[in-house]
């Protein structure tokens, strides 16, 4: 490797007392001198090395509990070959990201993409920095780099045994050109990645450190509570703020087109005053829409004779005509809210010098920047978004940045003063971007042996992409999040057709953990119906339709083995199974369920098998499976969002229940990574959960559940 001065920007990084990073750009690097040994050095955009060998790894994706903050750091550290005990992580600055030509790639955190879509470039960043550090040491010794090697943060010159620490040569390394090509480690040789390293974010979280968006505290900061039109799409018509304005601590009432907010010296005072506002809303003609109208809208879609086809193989008409038996069923599921524990929040500070600072819990720092720019009219260069830890995300904080827009508009009413907006739980429950409600009609043709030869599905479901990412819609209007799992079935079925009716209505829909996951419920319960009709074991029936080598087959076999499928269970406990791939991974689940004499279901145990190709942190992956089980259990048992008079009926955890510890089934996660691909972990385990539970309920009660949640079903044994 030749040692040359790189043309990259060279950054001096110093840490302020508050712990925030102050960045100072230097002259173009050709003119830069070697950094003094006392300085902190950015070796490349991802890696900062302190003179005492502490390594700070920059993370572009958000942390909402899924563990990406640690997993990405592990991948960088693995290739960097530093001492993991000296590693910490920080979020990359969205402002700097823009100024440095999007140097950190995507900041979007969703679709279980955090690790799998950035693993290649973050590992290369680690490997590249390691080679630069080795070259810098070699340069110091005036020896060929090939005679040197790095191990755990120390570079050794093999022939002489001389050693230099990363912290001693980082300054010189930073001024070298990055190598053109680096070789990544074979995952079987991993020492830091692939291991259950303790998560980097946990110590601060158990100490109660102010790491979340709602914890922002700034000098002179004020607080805001917000009221949005309870009817979606509505606007503010009239506000009488006389009583509110007179209340203690109230500084200002802010009226915008679609919301009213109160700014006060504490959040409680702001919220108390908000309750005293007399607001008249223009309901935009949506004030009479309820569940009934929404169901009718979806049914109208199902009744359309010719719909866009997401899949069409063979000839379903002929196949149904020739089938020995035709089975039909209608399935449905309701709207659901994300209900993150931390409500939507955004702190904004419009500074006198025309710079806007924003602190928020976001799944996409870059999208927050764009929203802040649109709301403030400032160019991106004049905005910084500080990414805070998220008190849950699950998709709510990824696409829509409504809370950022509001936070900035509110702060604009108080120039020079930082204002922290936090939604009340009620606002959060009633102003979400909900998991779409949907109805599907499924039709199957079986041959004499009960084999599935033809399957047709009509899906009526609001389109998430139409609301949030219209450019990603197919030309014929197909939204892949609405048809997945049905349009890409792994089962060998000769004749298949999947049709899609996009019917959106006025309720905003969004990405809710594993968007499209309801199709797993529909498909895998329907397949289970067919297995029972065919008189076959549900595992065997599915295996009979999965090609040898299909990883769906592998996880199904793995879960059956781990759950001891086919062996006797204690009296009253019954099993159900499902397998669904998605988000880059393959997941299968076996649920063990009992139903009491009064018809109360109890999910006792869930065994999940996942093949994600590679596993960066096994313990975090198991935690994600546990998380998917509890997140998915609420909608199976009792969660739903109902619409009446154009608005959401549910208002808080009293009527949108979250499962408690007493309802947590024993979760056993079997990781079966087969290598060769990178799958996600944030979402896959939710995919087979609902169908596995409902299939077990069928065995327990003889009742086929075709709509959720279970609270509406009489599960008493007839």
């Amino acid at each position, binding site marked *: 490797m030749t040692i040359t001065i790189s043309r990259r920007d060279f950054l001096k990084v110093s840490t302020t007392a508050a712990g925030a990073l102050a960045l100072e750009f230097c002259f173009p690097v050709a003119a830069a001198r070697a950094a003094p040994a006392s300085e902190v050095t950015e070796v490349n955009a991802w890696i900062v090395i302190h003179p005492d060998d502490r390594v700070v790894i920059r993370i572009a994706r958000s942390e909402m509990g899924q563990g990406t903050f640690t997993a990405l750091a592990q991948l960088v550290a693995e290739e960097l070959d530093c001492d993991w005990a000296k590693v910490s992580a920080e979020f990359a600055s969205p402002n700097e990201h823009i100024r440095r030509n999007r140097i950190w790639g995507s900041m979007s955190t969703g679709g279980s993409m955090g690790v799998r879509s950035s693993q290649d470039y973050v590992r290369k960043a680690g490997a590249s920095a390691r080679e630069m550090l080795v070259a810098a040491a070699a340069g110091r010794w005036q020896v060929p780099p090939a005679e040197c090697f790095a191990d755990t943060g120390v570079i050794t010159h093999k022939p002489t045994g001389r050693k230099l620490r990363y912290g001693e040569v980082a300054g010189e390394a930073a001024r070298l050109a990055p190598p053109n090509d680096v070789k990544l480690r074979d995952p079987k040789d991993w020492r830091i990645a692939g291991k259950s390293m303790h998560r980097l974010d*946990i110590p601060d979280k158990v100490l*109660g450190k102010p*790491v979340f968006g709602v914890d922002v505290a700034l000098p002179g900061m004020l607080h805001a509570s917000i009221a949005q039109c309870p009817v979606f799409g509505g606007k503010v018509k009239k506000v009488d703020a006389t009583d509110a304005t007179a209340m203690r601590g109230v500084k200002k009432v802010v009226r915008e087109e679609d919301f009213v907010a109160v700014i006060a010296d504490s959040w409680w005072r702001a919220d108390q005053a908000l309750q005293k506002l007399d607001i008249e809303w223009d309901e935009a003609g949506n004030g009479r829409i309820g569940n009934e109208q929404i169901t009718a809208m979806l049914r109208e879609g199902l009744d359309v004779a010719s719909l866009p086809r997401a899949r069409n193989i063979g000839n379903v008409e002929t196949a149904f005509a020739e089938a020995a038996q035709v089975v039909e069923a209608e399935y449905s599921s309701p709207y659901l809210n994300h209900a993150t*524990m931390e409500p939507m929040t955004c702190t904004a500070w419009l500074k006198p010098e025309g710079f806007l600072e924003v602190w928020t819990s976001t799944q996409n720092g870059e999208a927050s920047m764009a929203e802040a720019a649109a709301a403030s009219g400032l160019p991106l260069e004049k905005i910084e978004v500080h990414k805070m830890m998220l008190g849950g995300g699950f998709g709510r904080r990824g696409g829509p940045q409504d809370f950022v827009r509001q936070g900035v508009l509110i702060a604009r009413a108080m120039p020079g003063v930082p204002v922290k907006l936090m939604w009340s739980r009620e606002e959060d429950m009633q102003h979400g971007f909900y998991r779409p409600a949907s109805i599907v009609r499924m039709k199957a043709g079986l041959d004499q042996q009960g084999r599935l030869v033809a399957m047709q599905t009509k899906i009526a479901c609001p389109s998430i992409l139409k609301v949030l990412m219209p450019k990603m819609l197919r030309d014929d209007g197909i939204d892949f999040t609405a048809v997945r799992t049905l349009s890409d079935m792994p089962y060998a079925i000769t004749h298949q057709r999947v049709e899609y009716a996009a019917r959106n209505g006025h309720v905003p829909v969004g990405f809710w953990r594993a968007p499209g996951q309801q199709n797993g419920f529909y498909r895998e319960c329907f397949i289970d119906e067919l297995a029972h009709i065919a008189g076959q074991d549900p595992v065997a029936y599915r295996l009979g339709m999965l090609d040898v080598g299909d990883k769906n087959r592998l996880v199904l076999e793995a879960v059956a083995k781990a759950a001891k499928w086919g062996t006797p269970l204690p009296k009253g406990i019954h099993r159900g199974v499902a397998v669904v791939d998605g988000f880059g991974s393959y997941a299968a689940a076996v649920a063990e369920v009992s139903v009491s004499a009064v018809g109360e279901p109890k999910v006792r145990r869930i065994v999940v098998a996942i093949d994600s190709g590679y596993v960066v942190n096994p313990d975090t992956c198991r*935690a994600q499976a546990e998380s998917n089980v509890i997140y998915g259990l609420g909608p199976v048992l009792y969660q739903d969002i109902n619409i009446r008079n154009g608005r959401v009926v549910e208002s808080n955890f009293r009527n949108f229940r979250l499962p408690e*510890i*007493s309802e947590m089934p024993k979760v056993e996660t079997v990781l079966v990574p087969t290598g060769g691909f990178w799958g996600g972990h944030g979402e896959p385990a939710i995919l087979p959960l609902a169908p596995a539970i409902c299939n077990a309920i069928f065995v327990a009660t003889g009742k086929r559940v075709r709509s959720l949640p279970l609270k509406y079903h009489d599960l008493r044994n007839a």
Partner: protein
Amino acid sequence: MMNLNVNGSMHQVDVEPEMPLLWVLRDHLGLLGAKYGCGISTCGACTVLVDGEAVRACGVRAAEMAGKRIVTIEGLSKDGLHRVQQAWIDHEVPQCGYCQTGLIMSVTALLARNPNPTDAEIDRSITNLCRCGTYQRVRTAIHALAKAG
């Protein structure tokens, strides 16, 4: 003006008597460990200790706190980590972490009155809501703490 004993020191606060303790802690005393989650004493993200008992801070008024000893997550341990916090790290309990300070306070109160709770007792006492689903690890950590004594 009101005097509150928080984490072993007296604090004078100028708040309405009906202001919930949570907001006195968060916005007037700058103690941000207790979180707002529901405002109706359901989720437990705001749990603190009041005279050793786990209390939903959003559901008690400041005026009721006179003469009581309030402990928040910030005051749980005078020297580093409380054993419950250590167990939380050892068992990798938190995910997003938002509800965890409340959970840690609830578990601290439970173990103080019942050092070796059964699963049924855990189910009855720990009613904090966690959206990420850390419950399995919460249970494991409680049993490990009980075993360690």
